């Protein structure tokens, strides 16, 4: 089942920047990555829910009520992988920004197929704040 954790406003140097709290779905079968990505999202000022695989992510969107600013989508997952999940979510008219998360073992053609499934961007693990923030900073604009 999906779980939630919360973030907060971020202080930049001596100025408190009022930012929108972004809502993120982390889709990954690896509990370590789920915990790590939750923490990254929290420290950059977001709240997150997690899904253990693509099928859980699809179920979350089924009633049309789910609204995420960002979905971090792992590529290799059991039950439904990242490519299939991304295609399905786009077919369901999900307009969230979807960032694919690949591993160094993934070949170029696999990354290309993942992008073509409907990703906005693709990042290689391990994710860090420095990798992800430039891609999503515009989501913080209220």
């Amino acid at each position: 089942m999906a779980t939630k954790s919360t973030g907060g406003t971020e202080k930049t140097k001596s100025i408190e920047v009022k930012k929108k709290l972004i809502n993120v779905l982390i889709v990954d079968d690896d509990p370590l990555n789920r915990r790590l990505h939750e923490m990254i999202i929290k420290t950059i000022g977001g709240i997150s829910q997690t899904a253990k695989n693509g099928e859980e992510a699809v179920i979350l969107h089924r009633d049309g009520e789910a609204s995420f600013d960002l979905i971090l989508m792992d590529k290799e997952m059991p039950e439904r992988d990242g490519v299939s999940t991304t295609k399905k979510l786009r077919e369901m008219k999900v307009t969230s920004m979807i960032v694919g998360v690949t591993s160094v073992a993934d070949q170029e053609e696999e990354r290309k197929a993942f992008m073509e499934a409907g990703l906005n961007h693709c990042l290689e693990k391990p994710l860090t704040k420095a990798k992800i923030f430039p891609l999503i900073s515009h989501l913080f604009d209220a």
Partner: protein
Amino acid sequence: MLGLGVDRLQADINRLLASLFHQGVLDEQFLQLQQLQDETSPNFVYDVINIYFDESEKLLRNLRLLLMDREFSDYKKIGLHLNQLVGSSSSIGARRVRNVCVAFRSASELSNRPGCLRGLEVVEHEYHYLKNMMHELFQLEQQRILAAGVRYPM
């Protein structure tokens, strides 16, 4: 006097970490984990490392079971387990474990069973070394926290 105890423990922690970085056991990604930890999640590094240990031990057990089977031929499965281990080791900054997994994976891609068995032994050795070092680090951290919290009446 109490301050000296905390300072000594902090120096021990710094020395241990420096040694682990110098040996290549840990890399920059471990620093990323430490930087994510804050007062609202004071046990974040400990939690993540323990998740890593739990998941890695399952994978290592599966790898051993697969390779010990005389009828074994599913090198693709070995590759999948190793991809997971490479990924999670990278995520916590366990550089040496990651590197020996990559070498093991090369043997599995060549369907080289003796090479895989050797690879598994090396991975298990590196993994256990890392685990022992992390336990030592966490013990020192615990002692430091306790030493910092001790107050004597004036």
